[in-house]
């Protein structure tokens, strides 16, 4: 048995999404005209410069400010290191006295837990709706998808009260990470994109497994999960990004500073610390998402374009 290679998961619509190969507006004939070629080349440079200035500029400024003395920042916002001093200790002070490291760990724990709970809940729901198709499956999918059309603001206050005092169970999740992890799982959009993906898997696969005697759990574990890996990656990434960005909800349910993510802690810190340390703290909070983006750029952009293709 061990010598038999496991079948590699089918890679469905993976590579070609971001790289258009078909003809676009400007065709080969246009490119023979010098005016078009010159305009495009000039536009290319102009747009690139604009993108670098607006996209990268503020981040580079922050990186420089993070290691500048406060008085240099106040004297002139672009006269970096006017005093000839690079203050590396800003970063250390922000990390230790500002406890940025601690808050970043909280953020990471919140994001990871939200991802796990979202993947678990959304995958099982999508699996039941698209593969098992029980008689009440339509009701379930209707009830889940209907929440897509209801603006989030409706449930803000009752959701807070629910988390503060869970009905029936009677416990409070306030100041625990569960207060963020569990509500994050109730995101209908994720059920929708996983269900769409599962529908694209040929039904014969499920049928074959069923005839071979595999139960629902076995089908979920051995067929759906390996095949759905790309889409689960996208959903996981989208969840992590959303959780990393969240501010209002953790502000409400995590009043204890020890449990707060970096997004909630930063504004409080900004009121208490000197400018240079403030900038160092912002820089440290920025570093992780930007590095993640540089490493997983394809996945990020794929996730972003997918959220559009489903909405459209």
């Amino acid at each position, binding site marked *: 048995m061990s010598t038999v290679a496991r079948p590699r998961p089918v890679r469905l619509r993976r590579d070609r999404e*971001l790289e*258009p190969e*078909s*003809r676009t507006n*400007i065709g080969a004939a246009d490119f023979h005209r010098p005016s078009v070629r010159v305009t495009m080349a000039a536009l290319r440079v102009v*747009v*690139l410069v604009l993108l670098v200035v607006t*996209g990268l500029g*503020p981040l580079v400024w922050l990186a420089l400010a993070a290691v500048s003395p406060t008085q240099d920042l106040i004297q*002139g*916002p672009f006269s970096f290191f006017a005093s000839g001093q690079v203050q590396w200790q800003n970063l250390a002070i922000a990390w230790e006295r500002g406890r940025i490291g601690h808050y970043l760990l909280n953020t990471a724990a919140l994001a990871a837990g939200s991802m796990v709970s979202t993947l678990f*809940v959304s995958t*099982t729901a999508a699996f*039941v709706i698209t593969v*098992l198709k*029980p008689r009440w499956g339509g009701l*379930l999918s209707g*009830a*889940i998808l209907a*929440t897509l059309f*209801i*603006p989030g*603001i*409706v449930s*803000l*206050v*009752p959701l*807070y009260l*629910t988390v503060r005092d869970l009905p029936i169970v009677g416990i409070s999740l306030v100041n625990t990470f569960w207060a963020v992890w*569990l509500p994050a*799982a*109730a995101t*209908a959009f994720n*059920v929708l994109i996983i269900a769409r993906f599962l529908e694209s898997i040929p039904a014969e696969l499920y049928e074959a497994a*069923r*005839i*071979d*005697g595999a*139960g*629902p759990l076995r089908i979920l574990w051995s067929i759906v999960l390996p095949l759905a890996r790309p889409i689960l990656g996208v959903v996981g990434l989208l969840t992590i990004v959303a959780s990393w*960005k969240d*501010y*209002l909800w953790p502000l409400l349910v995590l009043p204890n500073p020890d449990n707060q993510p*970096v*997004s909630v802690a*930063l*504004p409080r810190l900004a009121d208490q610390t000197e400018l240079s340390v403030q*900038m160092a703290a*912002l820089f440290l*909070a920025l570093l992780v*998402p*930007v590095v993640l983006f540089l490493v997983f750029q394809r996945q*990020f*952009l794929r996730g*972003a*374009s*997918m959220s*559009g293709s489903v*909405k*459209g």
Partner: protein
Amino acid sequence: MSDEARLTRTAVRTGGGAAWLARRWRRSQPGWQALGIALPAIIVYLYFSWGPILSSLVMSLQNPVPGGTAEWVGLDNFAYVLSDPGLPQATLNTVYYTLLAVLFGFPVPLALAVFISELKKQSWYFSGLAYLPVVVPPVVAILLWKFFYEPSSDGVFNTLLGAVGIAPLPWLNSTAMAMPSIVLETTWAGAGSAVIIYIAALTSVPGELYEAAELDGAGIWRRVWHVTLPQMRGIIGTMLLLQVIGTMQIFTEPYLFTGGGPQNATKTLLMTVFDYAFTRVDYGAATALSVLLAAVLALFSVAYLLLTRRWSRS
């Protein structure tokens, strides 16, 4: 493979036995086992989605009595919220914010996406650069821009303006400029994801349409106008709707940039809900206002659905 051979592989689960037993087992499976698998989702949605949505409707009609059951007050909460002297200002601010956000944030990503999708080779860094601000955590971006907006002549933006001979602007400190300043930042932070979505949509525009238009003698600009944009109509409308729904619920940016000031010039509807609920602890008023806002937003969605249906029919 024979039936028996297959059955032996599932013998453990079926407990052995005849084929009819296995068939019956299989047929009865989806019932309770599907329920078991769906249970986590059902519980999570009951507690954190369906429950809160329903109780929002109920709470908007009630006044909580300390230590007892809430009393029904009909539409009193709605009347109270609608007669709040702060409401017109908050509504105007929110609508103003939405208008500005659409005005700033709508054409730029579309134009950028159309341009980027024309680049033949080595253009991945264009979308990467455009998307970079999106990965900046909003709170980091807000605190950074708050420093950029420093109103003295030594502020970052004012120094830049000074270099081209423009006098320092008050940015967040003036009632007239505070809201546009906030919109400028949110546009910077959000444009990238719209760019990526439009680029993806552009790849599905059939190339033959461009070829046909070219043969008919349409120039590049006319092709953009008569082929690209009409082909993108669906996604453009959807993005517009989502942007309106999203921006009508703006909270974090005005809360952290200005706290609603100066003189309530940036106080939005969601900040009013937040105030009702967590400063005045008036849950009835808070839910009443959020139900009203949600109803308006739902109306937008319905109007949009009806419109698109008419488009696709014609």
